[in-house]
């Protein structure tokens, strides 16, 4: 199998390298990809949508359908992870570990055994492995608010600098995942429960598709944000800029909730109890 795989890979690679003979040269300004549609985007974006970041304008406005269904794909991936892995039966682990916060002493309680009466002074830890590191916990607790603030900046400032809904949503999701890694999964779920994930994930897709449907109701085409001008009380070009911001927020919400949802399901194998 290994030799067959190697032969297939080498043959395909050789064929593809032979195909590059016809490719345009590296960074050629006259290459076919840069001569048809992209000059229109670069030269007309500012007057048509009033967004200096061309990537954002193309993402959310010119190619709005594509991005809407990409968001739907992400939502679908989150739902698939949920249906594949989630175990809704309440079944605790066979043993639980508790650690005394002050002395670091650890006790193990098997399922069905009597619990000591002073369990309040103990904190529950994962049975597999738990980093008990004050430095990591403290640094992450200090960092997470700034990471989240930066994520909001990336979403809100996507019109003028590199950024947008996808990037900001990923950073927001990463901040909660960092909490789950540095403390434990139960702490992260206490902050952002499964129900919140399951509501926010489709809510983001709904914001996106709802904006498109609103444009339809106001007499424009689907996802033609210039139709929003009448309710936003601005001219049609600025309305397209504002419409892009609205759908970027929807994308950010959907991406954040879905990434956390996927992480929770995969890391705890659907038990939502003890995880990575």
């Amino acid at each position, binding site marked *: 199998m290994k030799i067959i795989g190697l032969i*297939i890979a080498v043959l395909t690679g050789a064929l593809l390298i032979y195909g590059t003979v016809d490719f345009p040269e590296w960074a050629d*300004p006259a290459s076919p990809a840069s001569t048809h549609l992209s000059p229109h985007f670069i030269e007309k974006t500012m007057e048509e949508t009033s967004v200096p970041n061309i990537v954002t304008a193309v993402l959310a406005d010119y190619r709005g359908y594509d991005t809407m269904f990409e968001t739907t794909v992400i939502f679908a991936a989150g739902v698939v992870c949920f249906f*594949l892995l989630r175990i809704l039966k309440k079944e605790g682990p066979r043993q639980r570990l508790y650690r005394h916060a002050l002395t670091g002493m650890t006790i193990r309680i098997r399922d069905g055994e009597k619990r000591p009466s002073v369990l309040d002074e103990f904190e529950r830890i994962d049975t597999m492995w738990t980093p008990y590191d004050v430095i990591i916990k403290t640094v992450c607790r200090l960092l997470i608010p700034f990471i989240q603030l930066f994520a909001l900046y990336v979403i809100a400032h996507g019109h003028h600098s590199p950024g947008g809904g996808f990037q900001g949503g990923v950073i927001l999701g990463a901040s909660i995942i960092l909490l789950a890694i540095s403390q434990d999964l139960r702490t992260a779920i206490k902050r952002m429960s499964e129900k919140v994930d399951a509501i926010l994930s489709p809510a983001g897709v709904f914001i996106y598709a709802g904006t498109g449907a609103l444009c339809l109701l106001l007499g424009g085409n689907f996802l033609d944000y210039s139709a929003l001008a009448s309710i936003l009380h601005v001219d049609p070009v600025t309305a397209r800029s504002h419409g892009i911001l609205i759908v970027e927020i929807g994308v950010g919400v959907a991406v954040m909730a879905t*990434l956390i949802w996927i992480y929770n399901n*995969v890391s705890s194998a659907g038990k939502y109890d003890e995880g990575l």
Partner: protein
Amino acid sequence: MPELISTIVAKYNYWIYITLMMIGLYAMIAKNNLVKKIVGMSIFQTAIILFYVSIGAKRGATIPILEHGHGSSHITHAVDYINPLPHVLMLTAIVVAVATLGVALALAVKVYNQYNTLEEDEILTQMREK
């Protein structure tokens, strides 16, 4: 000879991506462990992302964020900015790749729960025994 060198200089970026892509393809075909296959899939995706981004490059151009954004009648020329379209496509592709990677890992967890192993040959033996 100088012609050959100029061809290599003009095209070597594609060759690097093709090499990366074939490493991913080989991992997907030949590796025995399911997680290694998933890693191979990710390498394959990375090669395609790099390929698309390199298509957008233009000599002497800058990132596709317009200078003099507001409040001036500055005329923008297409040669000054790189092609934004591949960046848009890959921006969404990266996030979708992460989401599909999550699905692949979820399936791997399911397989592990069922067979207590992620090695392909051991799974096949267990399936034949049943």
